[in-house]
């Protein structure tokens, strides 16, 4: 369904070196191929490690050695005109020399060095790459960034909070990979923005995200889980008690906390609670009994009774929920979930009952890969439409 594997292209994909059509092909493949997704995680981790290589400055004494070894012909007076020299050097240099005329040479050099440090720091602050701040547009009212009101547009820097009141809305451009719309009564902070990770924190309120990027580049922290974008559009809401509700409209989102992960496809939703983390994902058109029982199982200690109701009510589409439940139920209940899941969607070759019941990860992943085609099938028209609109 997703063509040949893309492992050889993953570094180029991560670095944005692929042509648009190839990038789209890789993105779509990653959505459905767990093997390549695993490789992609490894490549991204390698990229993040390499980014930690610290730069080093060449020792000051090196120029003296080089200068001493230069051929004799390099003794000509400078051919660079004063105005050109000014363009080659930091602009304060002439000022430093003018101010320190007549000073002892060492003192003048120290003064110039101090100016250099101060000027460079100021210059860095104002000309630092735009990747360290995201553009914000006001859609209604006057949202605030810190204590500053945003009348038409502004910039949200790392560490800053964007807040909307009951009558204001805003749109954030997420680096160059998508947009997030902020609803009234919402508070978000830009946590990080760099090549391999862009991250917001949603303290309360609601946002709608539309991201056209490789999986796991964009994250939203909430009080009870982290939403990891896998190439998608979604709505995420956090209430005053730190509980979240995620609705995915296209693509996939992963909700994660403390080694507990829920993978949520288009058309599905998932709730999270503080101290619990992500609940079990579900398709929103499931029966009322199914949804109520699942809530009881996830967050209200419903136990075997609630689980029995979920299993009994499950349709073919609800294999999304059943697959996640396999690793969340008590061992005594696991066979009940397995039997229902296998009846609705028989496991592929190589996946055995015993292996699943002992939670063999490879078998669980293989079954999930087979099930994803069912989960996506019903979402496919919406997904394809979303991808077309993103990539055309």
């Amino acid at each position, binding site marked *: 369904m997703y063509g040949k594997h893309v*492992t*050889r*292209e*993953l*570094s*180029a994909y991560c*670095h944005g*070196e692929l042509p648009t059509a190839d990038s789209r092909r890789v993105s779509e493949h990653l959505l459905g191929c767990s093997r390549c997704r695993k*490789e992609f995680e*490894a*490549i991204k*981790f*390698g*990229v*993040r*490690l*390499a*980014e*930690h*290589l*610290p*730069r*080093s*400055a*060449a*020792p000051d004494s*090196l*120029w003296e*050695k*080089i*200068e001493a*070894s*230069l*051929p004799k*012909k*390099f*003794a*000509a*007076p*400078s*051919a*660079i005109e004063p105005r*050109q*020299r000014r*363009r*080659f*050097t*930091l602009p304060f240099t002439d000022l430093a020399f003018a101010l320190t005329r007549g000073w002892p040479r060492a003192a003048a050099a120290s003064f110039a060095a101090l100016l250099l440090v101060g000027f*460079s720091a100021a*210059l*860095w602050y104002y*000309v630092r790459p735009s990747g360290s701040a995201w553009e914000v547009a006001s859609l209604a009212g006057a949202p605030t960034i810190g204590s500053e009101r945003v009348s038409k547009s502004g910039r949200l820097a790392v560490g800053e909070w964007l807040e909307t009141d009951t009558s204001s809305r805003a749109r954030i451009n997420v680096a160059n990979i998508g947009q997030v719309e902020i609803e009234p009564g919402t508070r978000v902070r830009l946590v*990080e923005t760099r090549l391999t*990770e862009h991250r917001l924190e949603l303290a309360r309120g609601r946002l709608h995200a539309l991201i056209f990027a490789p999986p796991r580049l964009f994250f939203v922290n909430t009080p009870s889980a982290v939403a990891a974008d896998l190439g998608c559009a979604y709505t995420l809401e956090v209430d005053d008690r730190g509980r979240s509700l995620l609705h995915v409209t296209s693509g996939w989102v992963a909700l994660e906390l403390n080694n507990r992960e829920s993978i949520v496809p288009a058309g599905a939703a998932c709730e999270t609670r503080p101290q619990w983390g992500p609940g079990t994902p579900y398709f929103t058109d499931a029966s009322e009994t199914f949804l109520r029982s699942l809530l009881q199982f996830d967050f209200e200690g419903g136990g075997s009774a609630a689980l029995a109701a979920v299993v009994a009510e499950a349709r073919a589409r609800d294999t999304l929920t059943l697959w996640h439940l396999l690793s969340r139920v008590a061992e005594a209940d696991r066979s009940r979930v397995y039997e229902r899941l296998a009846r609705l969607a028989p496991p592929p070759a190589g996946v055995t009952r015993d292996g699943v019941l002992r939670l063999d990860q490879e078998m669980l992943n293989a079954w999930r890969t087979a099930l994803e085609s069912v989960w996506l099938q019903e979402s496919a028209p919406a997904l394809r439409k979303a991808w077309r609109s993103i990539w055309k």
Partner: protein
Amino acid sequence: MEQRAIMSDRETGEQIIEACQKGDREAFRLLYEAHKNRVYSTALYFFGGDEASAADITQQVFLKLFTKIEQFRSEAEFTTWLYRLAANACIDEQRKRSRFSFFGDAFEMLNVREKKSQEEQFIRIEMAEAVKQAVAALRPKLRLAILLKYFEDLSYEEMAAVLGCSKGTVASRLNRGHKILARRLGHLRETLVRGEQ
């Protein structure tokens, strides 16, 4: 950063090269200042933190550069040549040192007990030091690809011109380098996440 912003001005860069070609020592100094840290950092990490080797390579590269400066007509040509010179100097020096010729295999050749002590060592040291050592343990071609990407910030096309290979080969080397780093430093994943929070 300001120096780099100035040096990327094509007209200014070409004027500097022209001045160098006329023997202007001040122009040479500006050229040196603009590129010295990148060349030095690449050599430093290529040789596993050996500052003496990095200084020697940097000196070698710039002296050779100054003697060949008449050949260049454009800044783009010069930049590619400079990084190619730096890459070749590292590889040539590597070949001379027979004890390093197996360094890229050293990690894999360690027996289990030594590997375990190496892993324990990695856990104790800072993330940057761990990455530095892991990069230094890569095979030279992979090591160079990683350093050119993350220190010189070259595109794949530029790296291909510097290394004299195809973009596909550049992509392949970076892919392998990233995967090896991820495999060897997998135990630092949580440390990385904690440090970035």
